[in-house]
């Protein structure tokens, strides 16, 4: 049954391969993404009642996996729904060819399938294979537009992403090596199933595990976009087509962080919690500093959103560093909220780029006055990403800061809070110019097409609902957090 989750997104990929990209192919993708969300919910319910579900020895769904499936499904739903009018517009404006659209259709669904596979697999080596798979699948998606800039972005993305992922492989190999030579017993082929490694984690040699964990954090951290391995992210996320950016920022970064969380469980059992806590604090603070400093003088709104992703992943890393159940529930909820909110923002930015023809902040004015629907949705998503109530990120950031103070990491939280405040001011300044401000003569009042507006409004609604109450997923969050927390 678990296999179905992976197969769902393959269906529209096959359809795109067979028939080229058509609007109905896009609708199939939307349907399968919806199935992912719904199915994820059913899976979550089953896991909460009966414990982790397995399929063959390969796939295993515990609360954390079920939560990630829901996350991926939600972002995928928004992205695929938006892709339909987006691709149609790209084809009409000749930004891409029919073949390009077909490739897009195949790859984006393969991308979603690979991500779902990654969170459902029980084997740390196969988990690595799938995450490496996402790099390959998205390489051509980033370079979809075939301009000089997107080519540059995809080159950096593939090189840096592959280097990172190969480092993670080395770390995985070292974990297998440690597992094969445990002090207790060992010899023979070690099982690389995550559950078995966790069982023998306390017997793993600390010297080897230290090296392994550093490599794994460096490697998967590159895919998450944590500093100092973040340099590919602004280019890749700003040059990719908007729905792809939404999927990458919203889902892929969280899936890569999921991998870090799985590694963290093993690391904490083998080395004690202090080691991974230190690594995550360094990565988190560094990411916040980098993101803040580069948001202040930012001149491109898509790059602004990309740096904001780095910032939010930094916050999630700090939350994971704290390590209490509260902090980890907040981290997971933050990933979900960021996923949905960032999707709305990126999709909105995609629409703005299509109609205004530019991604420069300085050349877009008065969106709220000229084009209310898009202006308001983009603006609200930005406010939500900045951590304003009633959006969910407000609650999670408060919870994280609280948990941090309770664990004695007050100074870290203080620095983070100051940086968040600076980002708040900077983004508001940039947004003010884009949303309000006096429009130039050539900027017209084009109403937002409903095809574009609908996914944006759905996303916004979900984002707001999440902020008001998390009642449906509350128990899921707590159980998932308990898997990682100590």
């Amino acid at each position, binding site marked *: 049954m678990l296999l179905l989750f992976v197969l769902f997104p393959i269906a529209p990929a096959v359809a795109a391969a067979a028939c080229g990209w058509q609007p109905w192919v896009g609708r199939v993708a939307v349907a399968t993404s919806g199935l992912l969300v719904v199915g994820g919910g059913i899976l979550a319910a089953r896991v909460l009642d009966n414990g982790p579900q397995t399929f063959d020895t390969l796939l295993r769904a515990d609360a954390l996996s079920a939560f990630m499936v829901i996350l991926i499904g939600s972002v995928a739903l928004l992205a695929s729904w938006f892709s339909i009018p987006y691709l149609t517009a790209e084809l009409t404006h000749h930004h891409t060819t029919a073949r390009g659209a077909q490739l897009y259709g195949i790859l984006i669904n393969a991308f979603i399938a690979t991500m779902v596979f990654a969170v459902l697999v029980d084997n740390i080596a*196969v988990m690595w294979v799938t995450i490496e798979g996402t790099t390959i699948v998205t390489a051509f998606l980033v370079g979809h537009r075939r301009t000089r800039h997107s*080519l540059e972005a995809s080159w950096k993305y593939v090189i840096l992403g592959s280097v990172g992922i190969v480092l993670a*492989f*080395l770390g995985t190999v070292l974990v297998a090596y440690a597992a094969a030579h445990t002090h207790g017993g060992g010899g023979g082929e070690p099982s690389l199933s995550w559950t078995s490694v966790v069982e023998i984690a306390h017997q793993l040699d*600390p*010297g*080897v595990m230290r090296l392994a964990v550093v490599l794994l954090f460096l490697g998967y951290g590159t895919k998450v976009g944590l500093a100092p391995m973040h340099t590919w992210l602004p280019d890749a996320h700003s040059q990719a087509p908007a729905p792809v950016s939404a999927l990458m920022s919203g889902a892929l970064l969280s899936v890569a962080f999921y991998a870090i969380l799985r590694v963290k469980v093993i690391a904490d059992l083998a080395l004690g919690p202090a080691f991974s806590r230190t690594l995550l604090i360094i990565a988190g603070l560094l990411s916040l500093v980098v993101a803040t400093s580069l948001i202040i003088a930012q001149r491109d709104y898509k790059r602004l959103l990309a740096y904001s992703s780095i910032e939010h992943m930094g916050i999630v890393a700090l939350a994971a560093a704290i390590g209490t159940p509260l902090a980890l529930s907040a981290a997971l909820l933050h990933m979900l909220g960021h996923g949905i909110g960032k999707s709305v923002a990126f999709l909105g930015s995609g629409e703005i780029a299509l109609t205004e023809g530019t991604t420069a902040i300085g050349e877009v004015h008065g969106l709220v006055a000229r084009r209310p629907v898009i202006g308001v949705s983009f603006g609200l998503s930005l406010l939500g990403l900045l951590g304003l109530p009633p959006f969910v990120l407000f609650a999670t950031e408060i919870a994280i800061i609280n948990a941090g103070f309770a664990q004695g990491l007050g100074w870290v939280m203080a620095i983070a809070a100051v940086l968040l405040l600076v980002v708040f001011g900077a983004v508001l300044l940039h947004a003010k110019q884009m949303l309000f401000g006096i429009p130039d003569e050539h900027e017209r009042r084009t109403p937002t097409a409903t095809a574009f507006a609908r996914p944006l409004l759905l996303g916004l609604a979900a984002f707001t609902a999440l902020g008001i109450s998390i009642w449906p997923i509350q128990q899921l969050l707590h159980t998932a957090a308990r898997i990682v927390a100590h």
Partner: protein
Amino acid sequence: MTRATYAELLNLLAGIALVAAVLTLWRRKLVAIVRLLAVQGAAVAATGLVIGIDRASVSAIVLATLAFALKAGVIPLVLLRLVRRGPDARETQPLVNVSASLVAAALLIALAFASTSAVVSLSSGPESRVIPLGFAIVLVGFFSLATRGKAPSQLVGFLLFENGVALVAVLAAAGVSVVVELGVALDVLLAVLVLQVLTARMQDKFGSLDLDQLQELHD
């Protein structure tokens, strides 16, 4: 084969792989560098073959042969085609001069040996004593990747880096299942193909394979 011969063979092959990696920092002609990469890949695959023969494991031998065909045959051929396309891609353009690169390589090799002492002391087999050589290749490959200025030589650095990791994998996890190895090999092949397509596009769009051209996106 005897234990002593086995250990000697492993040492010899890993040593050849490391020397080939260091030599790529020395040579300037891209064609020569790709040939060195082929030699290095052959040595790494041969290590896997020796280990497979020692354990009398058919799957390991088959995998090693496949890896040999891939690392010493297919990938260098793809790279050579790439190098011959670009008219200005005949010589590398290192950002750090050759002598300094070689000295840096020596330091990185020392660093690799220093940091993997825990790994070596964990197991008493002859494979674990050769693991630091694999780590040294990883570091040298990473250095090469970071300091090269032309796209094909950065690719070679990446492949060196990856070969080093493959060597460590073959030595350390001498029991990782076939499926995983296949998945890994496939991933690498696909990554190389993707990079090849991107390089071809780069040649078309930018007219050269100079990575300095990729500086337009920045803050």
